[in-house]
Every structure is written in C-alpha cells, then in structure tokens.
C-alpha cells in the first residue's frame, strides 16, 4: 500500500509524475463511488416508468435523459454499472485466483503436468475470448451468474500463462537455488520467495483483466446474454438504445460513454502500474 501511494509522487530521478496512474485512479474512483452511492440512492428508481417523459434528451432533471419507457437513464446506468462491475470483479477473482495458483504450480514444478496444462491453456488462448465465453454460456445457460462463471473460466488461461512465465523467470534466478539449498520447502519458495517478486506484473495484469472483463460482459449483454430486463446491464441497455438512434440519438451516448470511461479507467490504471516495482 505504501508503495502504491508512493507512486503518486514525482519520480525523484526523472521528475515526472505517473499521469496514467493518476488519471486511472480518478476515473475508476469516481465510477466506483457513484456505484457505491447508487446502492443507497439514485435520483430515480431505475425501473420506474413515466409515460409522460419518454425519450427525453439531456436535462438537469434527467442528466442522461430518459429511455423509451420514460425511465431515468442515469439511474439505470448506475444500476447497470453495478452489475457490470460486479460481474467483472467476480470474473477477475476467478481468473486471477485460479490462474495464479495454476500458473505458479505448473511453472515451478514443470514436468508432464505443466506440459499438459499448458497445451490446454494454449488451445484455450488460441480461441477468441468472446467465443470461448459463448461456448461456456451455451453450456451453463444465459443468466447473470452463468455469465460470470463463464467469463471467469475463460479468463483463467491468460492469467495462468502470465504467472507461469513470471514464475519460470524467477525460478531460474540463483536466489531460488540458494533457497532450495537451505532446505526451504517448495510451497514456501513459491509463495514467500517468488510471488512477492511478481506482484507488479500481477497487479497490472489484474487491471487489464478488469478492462477485458468489462468489455466482454458488455459485449455479451449487448447480445442479450446475461442479466435480463428490467435489471439490464450496460450492454443490454445500449442494445435497446440503438433502436432509438433515429428518434433520440443522444440516448446511446450516456450509456456508451460510461462503458468507455469504465474501460479507460482500468486501462490507465494498468498502464500506470506497469511502472510498479
């Protein structure tokens, strides 16, 4: 944590600030705060229809306008962001958690297990990620939880690959040999000696994971897979809004911009954290 905070200060050697990290923190922070506040308060109920106020443009009353059923788009976006973020978090938790364990163990021990696992991982990685999630969705079903699990599993291979690569790199360092000579147990070497050296890469990968998870969830729900109306997630709402592109073009903007900002926040954070040591 201390290290994280110190990254906001000017770099002593180069005199530069980590702009990406600052921008990423501001954007992501803002979205997270709005979503958290949205747990207790939104300007309108996201499901309350008002037939007298259909498809209104941006105004002070409705900052993102209203939709085709007269619901307040901003309130719906806050609600949809909550679903998107929740699924993304779940996805990254599964992906990073399982991926780190699989990658660390196969990378460290090597052998047949490693060769087999990596074949499977490579085969999965070669598949386009959206297709992979579609395969799992068609196996598990199309509900919110199913989508979260499907996305989570499809994220495991990339985490496993990256962690394995890092562990392999560290494993060949002499300090691991030294530890082995002293009789340090394998698990202690993996988790106490090696893992602290790859936190930088891991944290940055997790942020990229969020970035990809938000994109993937939005894509799937745009296709109508995932949480169902009236509690729609962002992609779903965007798909609805597209039908009204003629009558109220600005309808898509609020929703689309939210997705872009959410992704941008995470991608900035990841860029910034690549400089984490």
């Amino acid at each position, binding site marked *: 944590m201390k290290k994280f905070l110190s990254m906001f200060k000017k770099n*002593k*050697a*180069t005199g530069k600030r980590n702009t990406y990290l600052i921008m990423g923190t501001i954007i992501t922070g803002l979205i997270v705060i709005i979503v958290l506040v949205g747990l207790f308060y939104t300007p309108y109920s996201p499901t309350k229809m008002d037939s007298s106020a259909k498809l209104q443009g941006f105004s002070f009353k409705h900052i993102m306008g209203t939709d085709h059923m007269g619901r307040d788009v901003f309130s719906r976006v806050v609600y949809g962001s909550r679903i998107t973020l929740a699924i993304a978090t779940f996805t990254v938790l599964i992906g990073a958690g399982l991926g780190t364990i699989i990658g660390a163990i196969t990378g460290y021990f090597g052998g047949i297990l490693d060769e087999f696992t990596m074949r499977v991982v490579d085969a999965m990685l070669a598949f386009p990620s959206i297709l992979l999630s579609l395969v799992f969705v068609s196996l598990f079903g199309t509900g919110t939880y199913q989508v979260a699990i499907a996305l989570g599993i499809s994220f495991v291979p990339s985490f496993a690959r990256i962690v394995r690569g890092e562990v392999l790199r560290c494993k060949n360092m002499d300090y691991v040999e030294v530890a082995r000579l002293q009789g340090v147990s394998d698990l202690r070497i993996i988790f106490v000696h090696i893992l602290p050296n790859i936190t930088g890469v891991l944290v940055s990968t997790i942020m990229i994971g969020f970035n990809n998870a938000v994109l993937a969830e939005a894509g799937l729900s745009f296709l109508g897979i995932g949480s169902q109306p009236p509690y729609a997630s962002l992609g779903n709402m965007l798909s609805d809004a597209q039908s009204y592109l003629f009558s109220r073009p600005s309808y898509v903007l609020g929703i689309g911009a939210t997705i872009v900002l959410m992704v941008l926040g995470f991608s900035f954070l990841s860029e910034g954290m690549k400089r984490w040591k």
Partner: protein
Amino acid sequence: MEIILDVTDLHIEFHDHDKPETVVEDFDLMLEKGEIVGIVGESGSGKSMSALAIAGLLKRHALTKNGRIMFDGHDLLTCDRDILRSYQGDEISMIFQEPMTSLNPVKKIGWQVEESLRIHHKDMDKKERKRRAIEMMTSVGLREPEKVYNMYPHELSGGMRQRIMIAAAMIGEPKILIADEPTTALDVTIQAQIVELLRKLNKEKGTAIIFISHDLSLIRQLCQRVIVMQAGNIVETGKVEDIFRAPQMAYTRKLIAAIPQIDL
C-alpha cells in the same frame, strides 16, 4: 609518426536525471598510425563512453559532449552527420563486448560482414563484395567461410561470432579499430586467439587499435601504450612497460596489485 586521431578535452555529461552526471572529464588521446593503445579501468571509469564517443555512437539526446575529436581534418563531435557516417565502418570501426548480441539475429552472416561495403562502396558489385567477404572471413581464421557465409549468428559459437564481428569491422580496411572489451565474454583460450588475431591484423593491415579492457594483464600482452582511467578521469598514461615497472599513481598501483602474482 603520423597522428591520425587527436582527442582533446573530451567531456561527456548525461542528463537522464535531474542532476547532470559527468561520465568523462578531460579525456585526451593522440593515436599514431598503426599503434595499439589500451584504455584500462573498472566499471564506471568512463572507458567505454570515451570509445563510443570517438566512434560517434553515443546517442544524441540527453547528453552533452564537449572537446574535440579530430580525424581527417574534421571534428567528429561537431561535424555534419553525413561526414561522420562516411567514416563509420569505413575509416573507423568498432567491435563490442558481447558477440552474442552484437550481431543481428535474423540476418545472414555474409550480409552482415558485407554491410560496410554496401554502404560505403555502392558501385561495388555483388560478386566482388562476396569475394572480399570470404577473403576477410578467411583471414580472421574462420574455416569454411563459404558455409559460414550463409549461416545465421545463432549457429556459431561465441568465439566465431567475435571473429565475424572483427571481419565485418575490418572489411573496409579502416584506419582505426576500436575494440570495447572484445574478449571479456569469452573463455581464456579463445580470448588468447582473439588477441593474437588483433595483433596479426594490426601488423598486416596497419590498422591502429584502441583496445579497451578491465584486464591489465591482457593490455600488457597486446598494447604499446596504456591510458588508466578512474571515475571518468585519466589517472595515468604512458608506455605499458613503464607503467608496470614504475606506476606513478596510487590507483594504478592498486590495479596492478589486484592481479594475483605468480612466481614460479
């Protein structure tokens, strides 16, 4: 003797950080035609930086260079980039410490050996270039040069790659060869062969050599004159035998003392 290179008051400063950092201060060097001069020093002494500056290979941003490097009537520090380039690889060549990484991994050996000819002798035809390359590769002691000509760097050992580097550097018959720790990454027996090769080329082609090393005993084997550097400054300079017999400065004495003595 004819002076072919005259470096005076060379001063190099890096500006990567807030505070400028001086890496070379008041470096002087007069190189006579056909002689071998050694520059010795530990890491951070500025020996490689001086060499890179002479070869015109220090990157142009984030640093300042002062002083003069006179070659062929031009100051290489201030002259036009095109003039500098016309000397690089043709009149002034350089070989480096890491033969494993100094060659382009995806280009054939022959292509890399001929490169200087392609750049500086545009009228030369392909056949002649190849003939010269094979000839040069033979004279640096490569067996089967025809075969090596079509190989890639990863197929060769470290010693062979350093020979290739030397062949590529010498193909334009330069006046000056700058060798930056050319044997440090090699085994002792290979090291001795490379040193022998450099001595032979110096004799046959009359190329002057600036030989940079951290190893005083190696300098003693090859060079006539030596410049001792420490922390960017020249500590002492003179004939190799004089310096070994009667080192003037404390640092030189320390360097000599660090060589384990063998009395058989």
